[in-house]
């Protein structure tokens, strides 16, 4: 029987469970019995002679995401992206290449864009993480998100969360970027539909309105 190396489930069995149910179910189980080991995951025990060694099993990880503390038990080898999506249900951040090449997983760490697939979640402990869910909501879009709608800056939409996060960071640092600066700002975000031109227009639109 073929076993899936990641889920540890037989492939046949895995196909019967919808991926979404499986993940939601797994997070619910993990949420029971969270044990906080203060400092252990953050590695702050500087006085110790022996370094902390975490895992390979789950450890307590507390992250500051969208201005709230989120606690989870996850293996220390979990990437920030997988932790956000699979453990916190923040599925706005997309998993596409999972190799730091496409930017669909872009989030802000202390205001700077990073590829959340290419770092471990434990290395984000103590930082302020902002995902697309922290930028706006369907009821309360950010000016830039509204600009994406006005300028038709998405087609299939899969790169859009990453694009919006990158453009939000860009406008934060430079409220009136020129076209070259916008291109540089989205240089790490790939859109396979090729909607770059409209993304650039969205940033200009938001910038003209003085929004972010």
């Amino acid at each position, binding site marked *: 029987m073929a076993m899936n*190396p*990641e889920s540890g489930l037989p492939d046949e069995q895995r196909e019967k469970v919808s991926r979404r149910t499986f993940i939601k179910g797994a997070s619910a189980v993990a949420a029971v019995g969270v044990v906080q080991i203060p400092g252990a995951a953050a*590695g702050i*025990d*500087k006085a*110790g002679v*022996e*370094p*902390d*060694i*975490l*895992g*390979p*099993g789950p450890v307590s990880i507390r992250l500051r995401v969208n201005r709230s503390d989120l606690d989870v038990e996850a*293996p*220390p*080898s979990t*990437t920030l992206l997988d932790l956000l999506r699979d453990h916190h249900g923040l599925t706005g951040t997309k998993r596409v290449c*999972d*190799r*730091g*090449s496409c*930017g669909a997983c*872009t989030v802000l*760490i202390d205001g*700077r*864009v*990073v*590829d959340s697939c*290419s*770092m*471990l979640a*434990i*290395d984000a402990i103590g930082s302020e993480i902002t995902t697309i869910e922290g930028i706006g909501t369907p009821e309360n879009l950010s000016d830039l998100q509204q600009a994406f709608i006005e300028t038709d800056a998405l087609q299939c939409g899969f790169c859009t969360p990453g694009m919006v996060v*990158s453009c939000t960071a860009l406008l934060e640092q430079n409220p009136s970027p020129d076209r070259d600066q916008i*291109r*540089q*700002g989205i*240089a*790490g975000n*790939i859109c396979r539909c090729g909607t770059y031109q409209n993304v650039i227009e969205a940033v200009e639109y938001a910038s003209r309105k003085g929004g972010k």
Partner: protein
Amino acid sequence: MKPFQVALPSTIDQASKLQLKDASPFMAAGTDLLVRIKDYVTVPDMIIDLKRIDGINGITSDDRGVWLGALTRMHDVAVSEKIQQGYPALAETIRNAATPQIRNMATIGGNICQQPRCWYLRHEGYSCAKNGGSGCWARDGENEFHAIFGNKVCAVVQPSNAAPVLVAYGAVIEVQGSDGKREIPAGEFFVTPEQDPRKDVDLTSGELVTRILLPAENRTTRWGYSEAREKQSFDWALASVTVLLDRGGRAGEHRVVLGAVSPVPLRRKDLEKILAGGAVDGDRISSLKKKVGEGATPLSGNGYKVQMLQGLIGKAVRQASGQKEG
């Protein structure tokens, strides 16, 4: 990705001892290592995360020059005033490297220690001289991005954009293990396949890069850097040329270093000699173009890099000597 342990040393000594014990890999940002783990090229039981080590992050300066802590993010190197003013070619190459996301994550120490991007080396199905087997698949295989110089044993190209520029500035790589510190000139830090195909850089087990020194005496204002890629964003150089004229203000002390065309950054003393012969004019640029491909042994798919270098060297030299693009 197979789950692994993560060790969080807080000192260099702890990190070093952990690696000596069971050869676990060091991780700075992880932008290279995590990809190799996901692709099952490396399947470690444990990784040693260096980010909690004090004293190897940030940019400082003293009478010897500017020191880049190994954990300094690429973005912070590129925007540093000390670097932009004294070593502008370094700021320029990093400003254009990879993506904003990667530059915010990747460290300068990790950048010079990253594994080459050879697709055979980074495929779990291939064994070659570089990963413990023998031979080089690229020599008779797909090699359009591979080396045109020094490619007999292994045809990888050194993947760091910053590396050739560090060599040009005469940077010094400070490394430390449990036996103490060593300082290695950047020009000797990168290991050729002839020296040891298994190694990319001159680090022994338990040693890690702690700081990089850009010597005060090599601050240079007359510089040129040119690079060609397939696309403008997020790509590696197909070839690059770094030119420093009158390095450190010393007349006639020039540096020409080629990147992405050989397994290590390639300093070209023969080209430096041509530059030392007199003013940079059309004739001198023609001589450089004629000479730059000398010694190249292109493979089936990468002969274009010779012509590319001819264009790039003209561009870099004109930039360095303040002439308009021709």
